[in-house]
Each structure stands twice: as structure tokens, then as C-alpha cells.
């Protein structure tokens, strides 16, 4: 295992700014070359209710949110009560010594006059930063690293705000240096600066889309997709991107389709509820062969479900949504770098094959942040497909004579390019037809693209040992928890491997068959009740998946749950 591992958590009331504080602390750690993974739990309300933000810090990946806390920053009594049972032995609980109405004999308590130090620093509001200063002091983080992170976080807030927050971390840092208890042993050794990015899945999606040449983004706010909107909207002017908060999700997808018809790269994002509203238009993008990129960030359903929690329950839904037979591609990134890359692939596939491409994320991936070293190494060259500049006379937008089924696109106002993008079945110009031979020819033209698409969609990635006793399989955001669980399993002398699917649809049998056939004990791991991915494997591979590890409580898999499941059944 790694040399350094710290699981840090801050808890308090919603509205106390704990997410910002957690992010600053994690960035300070990442700036020393550590890997970090941040995971937030919060209720669907703005004020009140318990919020917590968890940062895992290690000297190497794989990394994910884990159970077992080393440092708990408790901004209120409730945090101690709720998370006491998660404390590791020799873990430490930092709390404001002003809070006195609970059992002070709890092991690991480290009282700090947080509010008093905050007032000394310049204001009560800096309390959270006093707390991270204390943490930095406890773990021997070089002070400069935390100061750099705080400076950057408050750089647009004015000199005074920046100054009092720096004072606050200093107060906390030196308080810890002078008073720290002996029982806490986790200490950092890295002390040189490293440039890293700590970003969420949604930020990676937004960044990848900008890099891909996004020109119009249309969305209606919905957790956990809204942060894509928030990330992109300030970039409108600098990057010439129309970011449109439309009246509903129906307008969002149709605005994206209209602009794509006109020739630009556009995208819409939502969660399951909004995607429900988009389904009719999805088929329209398909029959008109208009490229379309949709991001669906899943949360537990059905209906409003649990808005701020995670689930992978929409896989079957996005696979089958909208009436009729048509081709779509579903991409399921497992981590931040895959999200950044696969959104770029989504644009390429959408334009090259003139199809809808859905990038399927979930709250766990979309809102958790992870450190990455160099994002641009994942950039993909752009493939824009068949776009005509000079359009010949008698242009046929849906030319049936083209062998691969991918006909040329022309854009208004190019002379000769007139066409009808028709939601009705149509002829080669796009004009309506109900004639049977033409109907068959058009369906076959559109379906012909499937063979080329299947050759191009990304293969699953296989991790671990070839002669494994246990083979795990899953899609999307289960990646990090599984890879981390595999690190633990290694030490139990159990050989494990893992197939991670990043494109569950269209299904390419050859991508899975060897792995599944060679598996001695196959376990499908996914965040839903039915085992939707397992059922897709079963129907396509004509096998029975006997073991499914399923979770649908709104929480992601924690590695120890996977480890325990594997060990329990061995």
C-alpha cells in the first residue's frame, strides 16, 4: 500500500461553507504532489441539515472516497454524533472547545478554540480556515502549501478577505504545532510544489466540451448536472459559447439540435427527470441525422427520488429512451480524466456518424473531485465528419448511394444545400415519404452506420491479473471504488481482475466474451437495484451472472464493502 494515506472529513450545517473549505484543504495537499479525492454528502436544501465533505489523500492512485476517518473537523455537535462510529483508531476529532454539551471522554477529541482564534484572525467567518490550519499543523504540512491554496481561493475576494483568512490558517496552524496530542501519528513528508488540478467530473465534462469546440450549451438546472451550467456560463464571452438556461429541458435539447443543424457543436445536460422530457427530441435528432451530445448525470429515482445522492439506475432508460429503433452511443466514464476525454469522443462520434451520443455520469462522478496531473494529455484530435463547404447541384442530404450510410451535411445558407431535416420518414432530400421500399432503404441507410460505429467505440479496460480467482465487472463510476478495493485484496492473497466498461451501448460482444468466459467467479458491481448492466451482459452474451453486488442507498460503493463481499463468499 501507499506510504501516506489520510482520510479527512469536515461536517457542519448546510450553508457553513464546508465544501469550499474542504476543496481548499485538498488543493493544498495536491499542491504537494499528493493525490486527492473529494466526496460530498449533503441534503437537498440550502440552509440547515447536515453536510459533510470528505477528502482522501494518498501518495498514489487508485483513490476514492473511503470509510474510516483519520481527522474529523466537527463544526457542530451533530457532526461528532453522526460520524463518531466512522473514526479510525488513533483518529482525531477537532472541535470548537466552546462546544461543551457532550461527553468529553470520547477518545480522540482535540479541543481547539476555533471561534476565538477566528475572531483573533479578523472575524468569526474565518472559523473553517482556522480548522484547516489546525489540520495542516497536525499533519506537518508545510505552511506555505496551505497559504498558497488559501491565497488562490480568495484572490478575487479583495485584499482584506484574503488577509484575514491567511491570518486564520496561521492561527490554527501554530496552535496545532504548539498543542498537538501525541496519539496522532499521520504526518506528511512531501514538501515540494507540484502542479495538479483538482476537478469534479462535471468540471471535466465542461472543460472537455470547451476543448472540443462547444459553441452552444443549453440546459435547465437540475442536480447533479447544474454545475456544468455554472462552470460554462462565465466562459461565454471569452470562448464565444452561447450558454442558455432555457425554459425547460425540452427547449434545451431542441435548441442544441437546432444549432447543430446549423453547423456548430452543441450540448445539453440534465439528470434523469430532465432526460425524461428530452426523450421525444432524442429520436428527432436520430431520424434527421443531426449530431447531438447529451450529458445525463444520474441520481436515485424514480421521479424526484433523492436529488443530491448517487445511483446508476438510468442505464436502461438512456439505452431505450424514445420511440422506434435507432442508433445511439452511450459513454460511461469512470473518473475525471475519462470524463474529460470521453466528452471529446462524444462530439467526434456525434458528428462523424450524425447520431445522438449520451455521456452518462452520476452524482458520485459529477460532483466528486479528483486530482489529475496533466489534463491535456487526454485530448483527442477533432473529427468533424462529412461537412460540405461547396455544395453540388441537386444535393441529396440523405443520399442513399453512399456505401457506409453516412451522407454529407450542408449548412444554411450554402447555395444548393437546401434540405429538409424531417422528423417524418423521408426521401433523399428529406421530403416526407410513406413508400415502403424507400422506408426500408432509409432505415437500412441509417442502420448501416452501426458496423463502423462498433469498430470505433472504446473497448472496456481490463485491470488486474490474468489468472484471477475473482473477476469483477462494472461500468462508469464504480471504477475508482473497485480499483481501490483491488489494492486491499492484493494483500489478502486473492487474485482479482476487473473489466471496466466505458461504452455499454451499442454492445460489442467481442469486447467482453473472453473476460467473461475466463472468469472463475464473476461479480457484477453496480449502483442500482435490478443489476441493469448485468442484464445487458446476460442478454448479449447469453450467460447467467450469478453474483451481483448492488447498492441503491444513494451512496457510492466504498472499497471495504467490495472487499468484504468478495471475502465473505470465498
Amino acid at each position, binding site marked *: 500500500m501507499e506510504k501516506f494515506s489520510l482520510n479527512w472529513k469536515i461536517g457542519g450545517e448546510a450553508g457553513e461553507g464546508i465544501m469550499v473549505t474542504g476543496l481548499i484543504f485538498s488543493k493544498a495537499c*495536491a*499542491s504537494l504532489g499528493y493525490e486527492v479525492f473529494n466526496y460530498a454528502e449533503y441534503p437537498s436544501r440550502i440552509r440547515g441539515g447536515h453536510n459533510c465533505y470528505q477528502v482522501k489523500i494518498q501518495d498514489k492512485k487508485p483513490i476514492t472516497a473511503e470509510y474510516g476517518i483519520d481527522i474529523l473537523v466537527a463544526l457542530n455537535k451533530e457532526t461528532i454524533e453522526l460520524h463518531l462510529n466512522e473514526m479510525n483508531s488513533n483518529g482525531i476529532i477537532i472541535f470548537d472547545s466552546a462546544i461543551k454539551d457532550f461527553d468529553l471522554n470520547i477518545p480522540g477529541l482535540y479541543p481547539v478554540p476555533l471561534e476565538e482564534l477566528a475572531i483573533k484572525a479578523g472575524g468569526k467567518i474565518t472559523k473553517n480556515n482556522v480548522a484547516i490550519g489546525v489540520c495542516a499543523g497536525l499533519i506537518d504540512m508545510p505552511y506555505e502549501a496551505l497559504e498558497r491554496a488559501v491565497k488562490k481561493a480568495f484572490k478575487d475576494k479583495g485584499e482584506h478577505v484574503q488577509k484575514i483568512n491567511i491570518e486564520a490558517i496561521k492561527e490554527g496552524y501554530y496552535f496545532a504545532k504548539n498543542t498537538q496530542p501525541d496519539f496522532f501519528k499521520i504526518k506528511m513528508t512531501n514538501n515540494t*510544489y507540484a*502542479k*495538479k*488540478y483538482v*476537478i469534479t467530473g462535471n*468540471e471535466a465534462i465542461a*472543460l472537455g466540451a*470547451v*476543448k*472540443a*469546440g462547444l*459553441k*452552444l450549451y*443549453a440546459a435547465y438546472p437540475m442536480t447533479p448536472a447544474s454545475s456544468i451550467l455554472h462552470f460554462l456560463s462565465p466562459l*461565454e*464571452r*471569452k*470562448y*464565444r459559447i*452561447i450558454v442558455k438556461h*432555457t*425554459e*425547460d429541458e*425540452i*427547449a*434545451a435539447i*431542441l*435548441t*442544441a*439540435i*437546432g*444549432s*447543430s*443543424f*446549423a*453547423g*456548430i*457543436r*452543441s450540448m445539453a445536460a440534465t439528470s434523469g427527470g430532465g432526460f425524461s422530457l428530452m426523450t*421525444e*427530441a432524442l429520436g428527432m435528432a436520430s431520424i434527421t441525422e443531426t449530431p447531438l451530445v447529451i450529458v445525463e448525470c444520474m441520481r436515485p429515482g424514480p421521479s424526484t427520488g433523492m436529488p443530491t445522492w448517487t445511483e446508476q439506475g438510468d442505464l436502461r432508460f438512456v439505452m431505450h429512451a424514445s420511440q422506434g429503433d435507432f442508433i445511439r452511443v452511450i459513454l460511461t466514464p469512470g473518473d475525471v480524466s475519462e470524463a474529460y476525454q470521453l466528452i471529446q469522443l462524444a462530439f467526434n462520434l456525434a458528428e462523424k456518424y450524425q447520431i445522438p451520443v449520451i455521456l452518462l455520469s452520476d452524482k458520485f462522478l459529477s460532483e466528486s473531485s479528483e486530482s489529475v496531473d496533466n*489534463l*491535456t494529455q487526454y485530448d483527442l484530435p*477533432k473529427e468533424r465528419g462529412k461537412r460540405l463547404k461547396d455544395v453540388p447541384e441537386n444535393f441529396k442530404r440523405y443520399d442513399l448511394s453512399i456505401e457506409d450510410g453516412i451522407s454529407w451535411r450542408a449548412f*444554411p*445558407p450554402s447555395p*444548393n*444545400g*437546401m*434540405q*429538409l*431535416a*424531417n*422528423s*417524418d420518414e423521408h426521401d433523399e432530400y*428529406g*421530403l*416526407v415519404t410513406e413508400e415502403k421500399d424507400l422506408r426500408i432503404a432509409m432505415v437500412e441507410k441509417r442502420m448501416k452506420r452501426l458496423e463502423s460505429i462498433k469498430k470505433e467505440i472504446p473497448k472496456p479496460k481490463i485491470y488486474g491479473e490474468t489468472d484471477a480467482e475473482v473477476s469483477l465487472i462494472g461500468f462508469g463510476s464504480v471504477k475508482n471504488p473497485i480499483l481501490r478495493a483491488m489494492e486491499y485484496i492484493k494483500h489478502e492473497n486473492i487474485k482479482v481482475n476487473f473489466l471496466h466498461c466505458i461504452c455499454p451501448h451499442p454492445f460489442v460482444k467481442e469486447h467482453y466474451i473472453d473476460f467473461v468466459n475466463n472468469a472463475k467467479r464473476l461479480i457484477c458491481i453496480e449502483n442500482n437495484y435490478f443489476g441493469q448492466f448485468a442484464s445487458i451482459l446476460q442478454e448479449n452474451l447469453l450467460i447467467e451472472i450469478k453474483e451481483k453486488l448492488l447498492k441503491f442507498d444513494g451512496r457510492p460503493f466504498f472499497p471495504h464493502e467490495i472487499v468484504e463481499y468478495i471475502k465473505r463468499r470465498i
Partner: protein
Amino acid sequence: MKDFPVYNTYQKPSWCPGCGNFGIWYALKAAFNELGFKNHDITMVFGIGCSGNLSNFLKVYGFHSIHGRTLPVATGIKLANHKLNVIATSGDGDGLGIGLGHFIHTSRRNLDITYIIHNNKVYGLTTGQTSPTSPKGFASKSTPFGVIELPVNPIALAIISGATFVARGYSGEIDHLTSLIVQGIKHKGFAVIDVLQPCVTFNPSYSYPFYNQRIYKLEDAGHDPEDFNKALALATENNNERIPIGVFYKSERETYEEASIELGDKPLTEDDIEDINIDEILEEIAT
């Protein structure tokens, strides 16, 4: 009546003989001719219904969208390339029933789009059910005992929602309608033209004789379209005996495209996306 077959496709209209859609079809072509538009100068978005079938009879850049959803598609096209002449059409069921929300929001936005409502007060293509503009008491296949609700008022809605050119045409007065369409396209902003359009098959009581006896032209009546209050009073006048056609309301207001500073003079479609540098954003989020 002069026709401009240069705008025709090979398909012949499938509307019933006497359908009001013919008048709108002719008026559109005459307007295109008057504006000097070549086929490729025109981008149109159509809905679903008898009005939407128009998509097959006009040789332009066309998008035949789904029911009720012409305006968001038109919005996307206009934002991608704000130099295009974008015209959206829809029926009363299409645009004022299922798509009513988009109508109000697009009016608020004031994009430079011309929107023509084929208003025959009935669902034609689904063979005669009540529509949002059917009068109270209208008996139809879906309301054999008469409609209970009041009708939607597209002119009043457009005026109060922020459309900057609001007119009513009549498909039995093709020259007048042509002039309204030309004015609507020339107008900088969201131009709404509600067209009274007889459905001779499913709503014969609102056919040509009904309208011919009742319509009068606002320009002849000395109406000042720049007077918001008078326009609204006229739009909400409950007089089934005298029906005004012409421009109800006209004003100047910044368009959505103009207010979107990022667009400037160059359409997004002309941007080179080959090499996009995101270093500045990365620097912002780096440790």
C-alpha cells in the same frame, strides 16, 4: 394570383381543396420573392400537423420538428448563425397547445425570428378535435358537449410577453398577408403573425364566408401600432362580429442576439474550433 414556383419542391400540397394553408403557402413565396430571397437564403422550422406538411412544399433549408417544438429549434438555429433569415411556423394546436410555453419564452427573448401561426381553431390532421383557439362551446370529436375553457389569445399573449411585432393575417387575403410576412421578416426582433386560416373540412363554420364578412384592416381604421395600450385593448376586444387584421403592435427592443455580446458580428458557425486553448481556465483551477 401570382405564384413563384422557384420555391416549390417536387411534391404537390396534400391539403384539402380550399384549405387555408394554400393562402399561407402562396403568401410566403410571394414574400420571399419580394424580399429577393434565393432558396438558400431562407431557413424555416415547421411543426407537426397540417401546417407542418408545408415543410415538404417549400424548397428552402427546412427543419420539420416535432409537435409544438418549432421555436426552440428556430432559437438554436438563430443562435448558431444569427445572420440567417429564420422563419418558424406552427399550427394553433402545435404552437399554442403543447408548445405554448416556448411561445411565451421566445417572445420574452425577442430573437430576430418570424413566427407564423396557422390558426384554424381546430385539429385538422388528427381529424377534428378542439384546439386551444376553438371558441367556448365548440363541439368537436374530443368535446362533443362543447369546449368548457376559454380560448388562448395569441395576439394578446405575444404583446404582453415581449414580442416586438405582432400582427394578424387572413389566408383569404394573400396580398395583405404577404405584406405582413415581408414586414415581419424585415422587422428586427420576434415577429408574430397569427393567421386566420379556414379549415374547410373540420371547422366549416369558420370558413371564408365567416371571415370575409367580418374582417377589417387596422391600417384602414387608423390604428397606431406603436401604442401598446391600444394594441392590447384591440387584442382583447371581445367582438366576434368585427375581426381586425393587420399590425397590432410594433416596437423596437434589443434582440437576444444583440444582447449576447459574445456573438458580435460573426456567427458562431464561422468560428474555427480546431485549436482551442484552455490553458487560462486550467491555470485558474490549478493548485
